């Protein structure tokens, strides 16, 4: 069993009454709410958290891409991964991922991922999402009904750019290039492992299965709602004759670990409520651009449907007990969390748990405590799960002896401080 410590990098200071006062947390959220000086502190706070998680022994640390979004401050996750590559040594870097159809030309992704792979000594997991409708269609203007085709073409181009030993011409419908020839190329051969994050579209399972990629189910509806999705995924894998290897499935979940069960609600409830009631205030009109999902995926109706009257995806005013009862997150003492996670992991048959421990407005001291408890009293006790399977979706990093070591920063050396004006 492997654990990725995942971060969304939310803005922790959306104002009181955000939901009533603003149209949406995503796409048209006014950027005057964002204070760059606060943002400066937040980036460092969050990078510290990821680096600390790497120190504590999480197998991986993870970042992702969102645009014009009040709870996801990483339009470019690659910048964050680059920073993390310098200050961590062992942890896998899960970039989950780059919305490959939105890069023009998509070889940009092949190049940047290759840079990260080389910089980190082969520790990269290359995530390739289609991108949410909010990001891809509304923020970046991609035509919804052709996005999936564009995505597949971008994927083919990137993988070929990584693996082709020769310069080649690429005559795609969306990208035409006479000379594809990326420098640098990745350390991992033939390429970094590819994970496909998804929100439950049935075509994405087909795509992952066709290419033997890992599929990571990302949702904020928690583990109960995930059962149908994961069952559907395994059904497709079985139909396609794939081995039902749990490492081919990742699942993202909010986890809070505290000294006692009662502490979870007492200290963490307001921050989780902030997440569901402010961060997830997504205008219904932005949630599902026409043509973004195929009719087949809509018909499958795997996810909870918007409320008919309000069109809201998350009901109004959810409280702590709703999150717990509905299984949106797992919270409590280490013993409680261990027992519940074991059931969740076995029930969904997932080999990669993508753990979200900084949730909503959680301040650093609470995140630190919960992270430490997870790393000490939960993670080691769950490691035995799925030991009979091989994880074929994990980086093959350079051996320690072949890795470059970032030199310590020596301000005084060469009189650097005297040169400054």
């Amino acid at each position, binding site marked *: 069993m492997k654990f990725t410590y995942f971060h969304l990098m939310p803005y922790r200071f959306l104002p009181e009454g955000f939901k009533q006062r603003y149209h949406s947390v995503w796409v048209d959220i006014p950027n005057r709410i964002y204070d760059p000086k606060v943002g400066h502190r937040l980036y460092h706070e969050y990078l510290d958290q990821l680096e600390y998680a790497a120190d504590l022994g999480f197998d991986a640390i993870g970042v992702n891409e969102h645009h014009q979004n009040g709870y996801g401050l990483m339009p470019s996750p690659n910048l964050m991964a680059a920073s993390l590559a310098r200050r961590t040594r062992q942890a896998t870097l899960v970039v989950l991922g780059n919305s490959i159809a939105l890069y023009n030309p998509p070889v940009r992704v092949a190049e940047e991922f290759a840079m990260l792979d080389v910089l980190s000594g082969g520790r990269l997991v290359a995530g390739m999402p289609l991108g949410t409708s909010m990001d891809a*269609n509304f923020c970046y*203007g991609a*035509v919804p*009904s052709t996005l999936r085709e564009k995505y597949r073409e971008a994927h083919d181009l990137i993988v070929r750019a990584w693996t082709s030993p020769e310069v080649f011409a690429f005559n795609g419908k969306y990208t035409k290039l006479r000379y594809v020839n990326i420098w640098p190329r990745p350390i991992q051969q033939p390429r970094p492992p590819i994970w496909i994050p998804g929100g439950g579209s049935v075509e994405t399972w087909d795509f992952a299965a066709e290419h033997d990629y890992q599929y990571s189910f990302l949702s904020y509806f928690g583990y109960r709602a995930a059962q149908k999705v994961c069952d559907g995924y395994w059904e497709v894998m079985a139909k396609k004759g794939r081995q039902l290897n749990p490492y081919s499935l990742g699942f993202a979940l909010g986890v809070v670990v505290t000294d006692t069960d009662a502490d979870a609600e007492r200290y963490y409830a307001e921050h989780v409520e902030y997440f569901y009631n402010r961060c997830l205030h997504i205008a219904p009109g932005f949630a599902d*651009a*026409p*043509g973004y*999902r195929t009719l087949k995926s*809509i018909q499958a109706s795997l996810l909870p449907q918007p409320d008919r009257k309000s*069109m809201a995806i998350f009901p109004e005013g959810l409280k702590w007990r709703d999150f717990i009862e509905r299984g949106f997150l797992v919270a409590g003492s280490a013993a409680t969390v261990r027992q519940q996670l074991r059931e969740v992991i076995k029930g969904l048959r997932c080999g990669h748990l993508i753990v979200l421990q900084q949730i909503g407005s959680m301040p650093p001291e609470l995140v630190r405590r919960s992270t430490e408890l997870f790393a000490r009293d939960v993670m080691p006790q769950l490691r035995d799960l799925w030991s009979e399977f091989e994880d074929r979706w994990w980086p093959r990093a350079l051996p320690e002896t072949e890795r470059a070591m970032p030199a310590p920063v020596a301000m005084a050396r060469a009189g650097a401080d005297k040169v400054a004006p």
Partner: protein
Amino acid sequence: MKTVYKVADDRFSVETYVTGSGEPLLFLHGAGGLIGFEPFLDLLGERYTVYAPHLPGYGESTGGEFIEDVFDAALFYHQLMDELGIPSAHIVGHSMGAMLAAETAALDTRRARKLVLASAAGFWLDRHPIADLFATPFNELAALIFHDPKSALAQALTAVPDDQGAILALYLERMKRLGMASRFLWPIPERGLGKRAYRIAAPTLLIWGESDRLIPPAYAEEFLSRIRNCRLEIIREAGHMVMYERPQAFVKAVCDFLAA
């Protein structure tokens, strides 16, 4: 009468509402598509043979995968007209359909005998940004496209059914239709018509609902300044759905223009 035409062998199958008799008139629907309640088509049918095809991807029409931009759409309409035996016709378009009608007329100047563009898409003015139809939830649509969103008509045409199955069916059809429309209208409903409009040779009538809140009547100026033989008629107490809200006034404007 509903008729299904095969076009370009089996490439397209086109559900078409055909009514009336007289000179041929082709009606091109807007982004929402035909809804099976179009009294204005029957009124036009008293003077003309009306063909109202569902664009592939709409209704029962198939072949949407072959239409990815306005050029594909215009060429599809050329092909359809040839196979209907009406190589030229009066062409009347609404909203997105007006944009495609203008392209159809510009790409082959012999297709349109006369052209009617109602609540027409096709241009973008920074000082009059067009509301985002795609981000408008169905239950907020009436306020955007009807003069009087509280009217029985507006309420009936944007009613959400009670039954879950019917809701899903409505949602699916709407996603299918607007998904197709997004190929011409996403994210900004402008695809360079301004470069080609000079080619439009047919006498052209613009019709605008006075209170069109989706594409404001200010857009008429763009068409008037770019199409040679073009005039504007404003219809009062009508919004974007002008021919649904004021069928008699709409049909009279069209028929007077076509007969002149």
